[in-house]
């Protein structure tokens, strides 16, 4: 096991963030800086008949006003269906029509108000079933022109299916068939820091400070849409005030860079809370979920049919693979021999959907785990026993034909149930749910150097979005070199200083960047050992690095300190290395067919979890409170237990919000509750007791020392567990998410 686990550890960005000395984008101020504001469509679907910015440009104090006419004609996105500014047609209320840079916010607003924007309304597409009909209006008339590898048709943005065995025969062999239908409202990531961007040109190079989770993707988006070479765009992220997926992807960096170029001065954009709700192409998609499962009377699952409709919104952002990911969660971590799940991602005139913490999983898991309790009830089995019987274990084959190695799902069920308390009366009940989540291997790099005084720097492309994954890198490097984490400083979140990384997305930072850091540390270790070997007149392979010194194995008294070695190296060969994440072996699948396979059927280093919750229901009002949550996670080796526990607790709180209070409300495809008063996050006053256990199983082909991801997994299972407790308390399965007090009350009248 890794030594790092037992070391006391203060995360490097902690003091900055806690004391207020840390700097965020909003804190930046450059000489001559102008203020940006956007003109939004504020109509969900319309053909632009007039867009005239002359009067806005002529206002005193206005430096630049841009529309699509002023930027290259480039479409972008996972399905390239979008331009920087609206082009002929607006497809959702938060679409940017024009951008203004002015001397101050008031002048910028006057300029926005002076823009002449006229349009003919077009029919709104906002019903998932109706959008698939042959006579439905199209969100993208020219959909056939968008080149992409996804299976799609008209308003169907992406289709994916999982077929295994013989579904007809399987369902016929069932003693009992249970069908369920669920609907979920869309929800939001809601980072506490609304996004900010500052762009400044020097000659033909631009530096962009932005609150993104994915600086390299943001850079890629700027280069693609403004047609610039990579080495002329530098993206820097100061401290990031949360993201939860909402700051993944490429957003508004190019708009601000283009404004700064046109204005001839630095430009700053800071979003209001309302803009943070409405404008980004990252919303947790609403779904319609139909699932039908065949059982033998002994409780064995013999078949599952599923149909999923996902709300893509107006543009695809990164959501093209959500159809397949949702199908995986509707299958769940169960042994099912006969499966047919069909999943459709559908264009609507709502805000685009995109990666919000564990995209598709909390909703699909909520539905399938509610359904699972219905299955258990149908054969009169305890829900825990039912899951023990049907959930996959080490060596089992899942629905897509993946054979799982050593996994800890069954232990997760055991441990989570063990620690949950007893209901204190008949207005309390226990519910549980199980879930899974992939680890996403990907390219990632780190440089490590040790300077002449023996202090080190880790220069990483990885982005810290609050999870603590980047903060864990000094533990990994120091552990390898027999040094202390505090011996290292991090240089991070700067695309021109560090090698590539995918960003704080897909729970991939520790998995990939952690391996890169370990690789770089191993290389520095080799350099230190060679130097020590010369100095101590021993073989390099006999040198032990420990407690800040190098010594010869078996002779601990003969030492040279790393400080001394660093001083020597400064005059000779510098202590300098790089590491990058090697591709993980491909995961073979056998016996299943995935139409529209977007690469998320086969899962490297899959993560598993079980959450058990104790919920109290006020039956007269429908107000439910989660009193206690017991979680158990298999995320492989835990490198930083404090950080890992924090991740789980945060995921649980977000899960409670998704379960009980967080949901968008629309009228005519416009969100009516785009603010923190009416879109209700959970607060710390609402937090239950949260217990966390980690099932640490040696996992080959995972991250450093066998670590898997952990950022998203804790957000998968909580809502399903709460639903099952509420089903016990209300005597009915709740079919709409979030399960608000009014909905619970209506169900029980």
């Amino acid at each position, binding site marked *: 096991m890794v030594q790092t686990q037992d070391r006391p550890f203060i995360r490097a960005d902690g003091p900055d963030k806690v004391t207020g000395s840390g700097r965020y984008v909003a804190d930046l101020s450059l000489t001559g800086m102008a203020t940006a504001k956007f003109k939004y469509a504020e109509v969900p679907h319309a053909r632009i008949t007039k867009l005239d910015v002359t009067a806005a440009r002529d206002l005193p104090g206005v430096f630049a006003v841009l529309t699509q006419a002023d930027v290259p004609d480039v479409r972008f996105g996972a399905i390239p269906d979008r331009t920087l500014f609206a082009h002929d047609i607006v497809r959702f209320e938060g679409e940017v029509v024009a951008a203004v840079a002015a001397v101050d916010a008031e002048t910028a607003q006057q300029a926005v108000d002076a823009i002449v924007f006229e349009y003919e309304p077009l029919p709104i597409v906002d019903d998932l079933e109706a959008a698939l009909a042959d006579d439905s209006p199209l969100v993208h008339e020219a959909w056939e022109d968008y080149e992409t590898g996804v299976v799609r048709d008209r308003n169907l943005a992406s289709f994916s299916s999982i077929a295994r065995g013989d579904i007809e025969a399987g369902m016929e062999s069932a003693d009992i068939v249970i069908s369920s239908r669920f609907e979920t409202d869309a929800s939001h990531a809601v980072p506490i820091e609304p996004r900010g961007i500052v762009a400044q040109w020097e000659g033909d190079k631009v530096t962009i400070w932005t609150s993104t989770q994915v600086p390299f993707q943001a850079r890629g988006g700027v280069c693609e849409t403004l047609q610039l070479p990579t080495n002329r765009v530098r993206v820097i992220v100061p401290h990031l005030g949360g993201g939860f997926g909402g700051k993944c992807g490429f957003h508004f960096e190019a708009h601000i860079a283009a404004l700064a170029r046109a204005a001839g001065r630095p430009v700053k954009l800071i979003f209001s809370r309302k803009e943070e709700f409405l404008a980004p192409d990252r919303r947790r998609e609403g779904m319609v979920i139909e699932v039908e499962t065949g059982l033998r009377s002994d409780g064995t699952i013999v078949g599952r049919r599923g149909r999923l409709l996902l709300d893509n919104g107006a543009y695809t952002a990164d959501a093209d693979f959500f159809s397949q990911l949702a199908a995986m969660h509707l299958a769940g971590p169960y042994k099912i021999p006969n499966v047919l799940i069909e999943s459709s991602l559908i264009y609507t005139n709502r805000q685009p959907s995109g990666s919000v913490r564990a995209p598709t999983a909390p909703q699909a898991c909520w539905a399938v785990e509610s359904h699972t309790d219905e299955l258990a009830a149908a054969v009169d089995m305890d829900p825990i026993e039912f899951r023990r019987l049907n959930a996959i274990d080490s060596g089992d084959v899942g629905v897509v034909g993946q054979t799982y190695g050593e996994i800890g799902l069954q232990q997760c069920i055991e441990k989570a149930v063990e620690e949950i308390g007893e209901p204190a009366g008949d207005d309390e009940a226990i519910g549980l749910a199980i879930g899974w989540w992939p680890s996403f291997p990907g390219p990632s790099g780190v440089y490590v150097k040790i300077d002449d005084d023996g202090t080190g720097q880790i220069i990483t492309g990885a982005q810290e979005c609050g999870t603590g994954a980047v903060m864990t890198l000094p533990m990994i490097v120091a552990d390898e070199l027999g040094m202390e984490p505090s011996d290292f400083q991090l240089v991070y979140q700067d695309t021109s200083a560090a090698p590539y990384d995918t960003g704080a997305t897909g729970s991939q930072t520790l998995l990939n960047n952690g391996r890169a850091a370990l690789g770089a540390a191993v290389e520095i270790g080799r350099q230190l050992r060679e130097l020590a070997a010369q100095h101590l007149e021993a073989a390099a392979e006999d040198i032990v690095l420990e407690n800040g010194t190098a010594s010869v194995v078996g002779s601990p008294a003969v030492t040279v300190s790393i400080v001394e070695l660093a001083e020597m190296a400064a005059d000779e060969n510098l202590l300098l290395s790089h590491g990058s994440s090697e591709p993980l072996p491909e995961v073979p699948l056998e016996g299943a067919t995935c139409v529209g396979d977007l690469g998320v059927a086969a899962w490297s280093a899959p993560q598993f979890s079980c959450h058990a919750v104790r919920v109290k229901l006020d039956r007269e009002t429908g107000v439910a409170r989660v009193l206690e949550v017991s979680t158990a996670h298999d995320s492989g080796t835990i490198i930083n237990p404090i950080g890992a526990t924090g991740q789980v607790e945060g995921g649980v709180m977000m899960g409670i919000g998704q379960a009980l*209070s967080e949901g968008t409300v629309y009228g005519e495809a416009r969100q009516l509750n785009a603010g*923190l008063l009416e879109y209700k996050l959970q607060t710390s*006053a609402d937090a239950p007791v949260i217990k966390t256990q980690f099932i640490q199983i040696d996992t080959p082909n995972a991250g450093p020392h066998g670590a898997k991801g952990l950022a998203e997994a804790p957000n998968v299972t909580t809502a399903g567990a709460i639903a099952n407790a509420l089903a016990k308390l209300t005597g009915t399965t709740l079919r709409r998410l979030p399960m608000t007090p009014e909905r619970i009350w209506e169900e029980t009248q």
Partner: protein
Amino acid sequence: MIIAETLEQALEALAAGARPIAGGSDLVVAHRSGKAPLPAQLVAIDRLEELSSIEQGEDGVRIGAVVNHARLVTHPLIIDTYPSLADAAALVGSPATRNVGTIGGNVMNGSPAMDTGAPLVVLGAKVALQSTNGYREIDVADLWTGPGVTSAEPDELCVALSIPTPQASTSSAYVRLEYRRAMEIAVVGAACSVTLSEGVVSAINIALTAVAPTIVAVDGLEGAIGQPPQDVEALVQSVASEQASPISDLRAGAEYRRQMVGVMAKRSFAAAVARAQGEAIAVPVNRSIGIGA
């Protein structure tokens, strides 16, 4: 902005067209959210000592207009004698909101969802209004004429709330329906003041939050008089629901609100009765016996 050093300065500024500001928790938030621009001229009244005391007199208590919610929650006299007001003040916003938001501001803002309104009605509070032209006191229930609208003249400043000393064996409680435990606004709420005499109800007042254009007092509770409290709960619940005229909005549908305000009325009645019987029910009732757990 004028920072008033005396009440006279403040009243003169109001007479000249300025609007008063103390905590700013309504004015500034409305401005930032784009709901209402800040008034052109403001007069800050938060430093006026004469508006910041809680004084017990012969007939009752006089609460200065700029007393903030946090003080109400911790004041022994308010907790002991007017606990419904403390119940309500304890639920407002967050610790930060409670430390800047004032009782006078809350009353004059006139929101039908205000938490302190229903307790003030059932406690029989009067609002003291002063201008350069004079001074008057009116029942709080007569102050609110619509959502965010009061019967006060633009140059009148709310300087205090005065609440009479309750009869013996009287207590009160406020309960609201809330979806979370901080930074919340009442979905519906109800306050109840009850007097017991030899085991039966001898006086009862109930007022409702967020079910009408203003805080409303409930009529038609005569049937409760002379009855043992446990026999009255159903009546309280049904009368409160019947008298509500709620709207449907993002927070709740009208029918849910109507039913829930009855539940809140019943619970506020039960808590007020328990307190009147000498049972210690900690402030706020919402955390002691109120909603959820």
